[in-house]
């Protein structure tokens, strides 16, 4: 057999296994952050029983979810009902393939990484819609339809907001984009409007407060997840938190230099040490944005569904187009 093919298969298996394994601690860490940080902001203690300062609370939650009974409503469409958590989780896990964690640590350094990322992450809406329909519950159905409307609308400003960055850098590959930022400075400086649009739309895309229409607990009980229990419910929540991590990671890669260190430090090192160094900065920056998302959740109420849609089409989309227009003219005029 061809040695190169074997190597490729081995590399693929290793990368996917590592990424799937990475989703578990990521979800646990973000759930723990969410419980503990919101508790501090609410002037509560938060979980403090399991482990020192309660740091194993979310792990225990994970095991508890595994041990719970997995029920399917009588009238539900059993096959699609079972498939939906899978689809949502796989969409999140698959989009991790192109995230540039550190120099040399990208599972698949595709030359169309950005396109792949938005295509795959958008698949999760199918899972939510299916979950809403298959549950045979009116709240689930409303939640599923809301998710379809919201995520499809927000994908447009989300994608358009980074076209400016792509035009500037002239590449669709994440690693080349970071190489461009190493040379010209972080895209944050070049694309401030794009950053704003991207951040707002990414919150909506991963259903975070103030845009958590999909599982608006005070209106729709739990949206499409209402009828789910046990590990199927767990998969939805894993997917949600992983998606938050991925969105923060992509935000960092696109606008904040990815694995590049900020100014006083050397931006990039070589060798294996350089990989660790890059991964440190990547995770640090990513978790700062995760923290901001948690902070927003503790602070803001939820917008209404029509205000949400109005913002996507009336504010963000025109703004993204203007941003793209200005960037394109600047690229031509100043020959960037």
């Amino acid at each position, binding site marked *: 057999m061809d040695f190169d093919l074997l190597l490729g298969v081995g590399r693929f298996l290793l990368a996917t296994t590592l990424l799937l394994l990475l989703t578990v601690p990521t979800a646990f860490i973000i759930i723990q952050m969410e419980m503990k940080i919101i508790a501090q*902001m609410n*002037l509560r203690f938060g979980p403090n029983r399991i482990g020192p300062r309660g740091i194993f609370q979310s792990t225990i939650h994970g095991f508890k979810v595994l041990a719970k009974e997995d029920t399917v409503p009588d009238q539900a469409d059993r096959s699609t009902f079972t498939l939906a958590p899978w689809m949502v989780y796989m969409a999140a896990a698959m989009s991790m393939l192109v995230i540039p964690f550190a120099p040399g640590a990208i599972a698949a350094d595709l030359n169309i990484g950005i396109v792949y990322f938005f295509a795959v992450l958008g698949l999760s809406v199918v899972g939510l819609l299916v979950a809403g329909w298959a549950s045979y519950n009116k709240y689930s159905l409303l939640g599923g339809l809301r998710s379809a409307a919201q995520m499809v609308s927000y994908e447009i400003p989300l994608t358009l907001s980074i076209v400016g960055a792509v035009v500037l850098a002239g590449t669709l590959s994440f690693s080349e984009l970071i190489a461009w930022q190493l040379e010209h400075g972080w895209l944050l400086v070049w694309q401030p409007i794009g950053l704003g649009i991207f951040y707002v739309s990414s919150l909506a895309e991963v259903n975070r407060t103030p845009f958590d229409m999909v599982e608006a607990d005070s209106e729709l009980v739990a949206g499409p997840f209402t009828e789910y229990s046990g590990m199927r419910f767990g998969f939805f929540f894993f997917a949600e938190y992983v998606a938050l991590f991925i969105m923060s990671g992509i935000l960092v890669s696109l606008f904040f230099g990815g694995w590049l260190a900020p100014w006083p430090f050397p931006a990039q090192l070589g060798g294996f040490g350089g990989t660790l160094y890059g991964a440190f900065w990547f995770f640090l920056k990513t978790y700062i944005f995760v923290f901001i998302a948690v902070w927003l959740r503790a602070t*803001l*109420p939820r917008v209404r569904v029509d205000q949400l849609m109005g913002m996507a089409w009336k504010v963000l989309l025109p703004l993204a187009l203007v941003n793209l227009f200005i960037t394109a003219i600047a690229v031509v005029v100043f020959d960037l």
Partner: protein
Amino acid sequence: MTKIDPETRIPDPIELDRIEEDRLRAVAGLAPMRSPGGEYAGFDQVGIPDRPPQTEREREIYAIEEGEMLINMGPQHPSTHGVMRLLVKVRGEIVVDIDPVLGYLHRGIEKLCENATYTTVLTYVDPMDYLSTMHNEHAPAIAFEKLYGVRPPKRAEYIRALVVELNRVFSHGLMMGFLALDMGGLTPILYAFINRDEIVDLLSAISGQRMLFNFFRVGGVNFDTNDEFLSRLGTWRSNVMKNIEMNERMITDNEIFRARTIDMGTLSGQDAISLGVTGPNLRASGVPFDVRRAHPYSIYNELEFDVITQPGGDSYARYLQRIAEIKQSIHLIDQIIDKMPHGPVQAQVPGIIRPKPGRAYAAIESPRGLYSVYAISDGGPNPYRFRMRDPSFISLQAMPKLMPGRLVADTMAIMASLDPVMGGVDK
């Protein structure tokens, strides 16, 4: 299952109703409720009662057109403020019609009170509107004093006014939190509960209870003020404005909060009057009616306060009205502490009160509106009839007027702005 012979079976009450209605309809020359060919169409549909509609309103709400569906919000729903069922007819996300279904928390408190002596009635009314327990006790206490012809000492009146105003502060404070919670804001409710906890500790220092205070007596109050109460009151007074403003800063100028409450659920003053809505909800619609000013009871004619109104009548106006009233209450508390006289806190009344036959009515301003008690005595040790008017029950009447045309998300926000407490509604 055993088979029932249809010939000898005794029809159930609903079926008897149906037979009776068909008989009456035949007399009036109308077609029977069941269609001649077969069963009533609603039998096969999920979510519709398996009987023909009994009233015009039922017929209206259960008639579903193409593209509409019925959703039961509650009794097990995260934000129905207790156990209430909202039958919501929606077209997509737009609410077409709404029907509040009450009674899930009915405990028969009026009947319990009619079987209790006048003294123990004051303990039974406590769990009614469980966020304004002091007010619940205040109205029957005044009514029974009128019946028996006794007046509480001056100091008792001042202590009463002090505790009911403290109660009003935390009740309005919680409303701020619940309104934000029903829009998805997690933090204001916890800040509100911190404020509430301070007041509840304060009231437990004077009454010995944390929630169902059981503090009022016919002809006075249970305990005089004590050192712990007064020292806690001083601490609370020095912090309270800071705490309220901390919570206010999170809500009042928040863009999302304003976008979701301004022009939402607008109740005009005329509508509010014709529905019988009272209290902050009425004053938020621009009608300056406050029982404390219009029909002064206790010592309110000796105190100086403003009847604040808001021009808007929408959810945001109702929220601002609560904050303004919290500040008024704190102003009242300051005056009460300054003016409080010395003396006894309990008039001489026998252990078992037997008023002369007669009737008495007492109305007070509770945090939710005009809360009143009508008591009839037949000369015995317990009231012959004991009737309570709960303001949140009346406020809920406004919901079918406010919600149609709004979105599902607004139902909860508008309901929270009316600030109903199901314990009081269902009694």
